[in-house]
């Protein structure tokens, strides 16, 4: 089964004709993802290595039955692209684009709330269900099919931790990069709920970082709703307050959003929290024993 993406995914890529868009679309297709369409306004009738390009997501849905969208549109147009996919009835939108104004994301957040579309990202590496579908930029070769679910705010930490898991023979059901922006779509809680319900996931790895309270809220959710073992990792213990550490959302404000508080909250909910990325794999092995 896995979550979010899999054999049933029919992908439309928004911004398919840009350099990044084309490159990653073809990688995802080579991985086995069913890429059915691309969208670039004004480029209808063209194709990208055989993938038909349309002017609108609506056309891609009507003509090709797209049910998942991947957004590679530049930041200033990306929120519009997400809204377009949602209104075209696409069930899952994965937005890779970094640097979207947070106000635009607040508008998207408000529009999507209570609707049928799930957003992953923005500013994220995407979602991969090893062996079946890759929607995004996570390098497929470091993953291997298996029963560990992973959800992370950071992209490179997905890679690092997946790599460590794979090296120890621990395959993954689905890896979700939820992105480093302050206002984002799917969060830890939604991912945890999906993994909890997924019969092919035995354990969830949750990778957080400084800023906001996503991890604290996830900890509360784990305590109340998650029976599968959860292993955590938090980056940014050494980050000083008030300094933005690369990600737009990675900032300790006053005494809030520290790594220590997040690790503590998770541990209080019974989550084993690793101190290094390598230790994550060790704790996963222990938890599954």
């Amino acid at each position, binding site marked *: 089964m896995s979550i979010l993406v899999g054999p049933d995914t029919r992908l439309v890529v928004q911004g398919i004709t840009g350099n990044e868009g084309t490159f990653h679309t073809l990688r995802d297709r080579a991985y086995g993802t069913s890429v059915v369409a691309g969208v670039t306004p004004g480029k209808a009738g063209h194709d990208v290595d055989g993938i038909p390009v349309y002017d609108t997501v609506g056309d891609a849905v009507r003509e090709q039955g797209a049910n998942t969208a991947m957004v590679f549109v530049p*930041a*200033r147009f990306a929120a519009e692209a997400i809204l377009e996919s949602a209104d075209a009835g696409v069930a899952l939108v994965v937005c890779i684009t970094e*640097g*979207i*104004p*947070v*106000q635009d*994301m*607040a*508008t998207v*957040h*408000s*529009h999507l*709330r209570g609707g049928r579309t799930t957003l992953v990202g923005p500013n994220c590496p995407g979602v991969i269900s090893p062996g079946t579908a890759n929607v995004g*930029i*996570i*390098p497929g*070769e*470091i993953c291997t099919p298996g029963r560990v679910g992973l959800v*992370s*705010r*950071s*992209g*490179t*930490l997905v*890679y*690092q931790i997946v*790599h460590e898991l794979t090296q120890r023979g621990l395959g993954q059901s689905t890896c979700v990069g939820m992105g*480093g922006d*302050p*206002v984002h779509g799917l969060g830890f809680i939604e991912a945890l709920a999906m993994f909890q319900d997924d019969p092919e996931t035995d354990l969830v790895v949750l*990778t957080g*970082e*400084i*800023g*906001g*309270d*996503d991890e604290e809220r996830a900890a509360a959710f784990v305590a109340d709703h998650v029976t599968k073992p959860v292993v955590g*990792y938090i*980056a*940014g*213990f*050494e*980050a000083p307050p008030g*300094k*933005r*550490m*690369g*990600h*737009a*959302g*990675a900032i300790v404000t*006053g*005494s*809030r959003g520290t*790594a220590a508080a997040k690790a503590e909250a998770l541990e209080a909910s019974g989550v084993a929290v690793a*101190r*290094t*990325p*390598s230790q994550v794999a060790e704790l996963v092995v222990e938890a599954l024993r």
Partner: protein
Amino acid sequence: MDLYEHQGKDLFRAHEIPTSRGILAETPEEAAEATRTLGGRAVVKVQVQVGGRGKGGGVVLVDSPERASEEAARMLSADFKGHEVNRVLVEEQLPIAQEYYTSMLLDRSAGSYLAMMTAEGGMDIEELARTRPEALRRVHIDALLGLRTFHVRELAGVLPSQAREGAGDVLRGMFQLLRERDATLVEINPLVLLEDGRVVALDAKVTIDDNALFRHEDLESLKAAFPIDPVQARADEKGLQYVKLDGNVGIIGNGAGLVMSTLDVVAQAGAEAANFLDVGGGASADQMATSLEVVLSDPAVAVVFINIFGGITRCDLVAEGILAALDRVDAQVPVVVRLDGTNAEEGRAILAEAAHPRIVVAATMLEAAERAASAANGAAA
């Protein structure tokens, strides 16, 4: 991007939020002249992008141009909490009846705006929210619905009746500023009721979303007033995410999360990072060379730790990039390199073959952190 008070107040005036009359001064003489213009009495306020000015001697009432000159001279001659001071704001003194607090911000957890108001001026707002939450009115504002009349009534209702109308105007101005200028925070502390019944913003704290600067050329230009750090400027120019820290292990990595994690493992190994630097996805030779230049320009750096996880980026190309960078940059300190992920073995082989005298190759992130820490501590001893 955090604005100076005087820049925030310019925006306030543009959005019809009442402020006190003020004149910017860059020298003690200008401060004295400004005080004369304002009638001989004034408030002199240090202009820095950090809070806590009142308690730190950064806001002083003066009753003569001479006193204004003295205070300005004192403020301009030293850093304020580690921040360079180039300007003071000289403002008129106003007859204050009461002090309040208000703010509007983008609440990341809720994905909407949050407006807050309290009649208790001069309080630490986090403290107030904890100890007496009933005294702090909090209203969430949906991004699509915007600020509604009932929001304004709800917020201003926490104030005495004579201040409500004025406070309502302030709230409408704040929301307009938030929306039209892509602010993520507008804070007024204190908001004051004057003896004549006017409600005026005595302070202005405004943060603008860096991601939205492309649609605000006028705000982008405000950066010209910020202190210039040449190292930071060079990093910005190349699109590198660089944050200066206090230790002596220079850090270069790809991806914000991995770099944060690298700072942590270096600390666990017993040393302190000198910086955060995210070289970005590509990690090309040029990016790597610039990163090394930026990190090595910090004289505290005793060792550099390059931590790369090759995903889309192949480690053999990264290894070549590091070697090319070291051709361009004359590193006087050891450079510990950890490559993992795609083509990591090829990358390590390239570095081994080059046998560069400065490069130390480590197999894992933890081993690299330990090597970097021991080099850093050896250098410090």
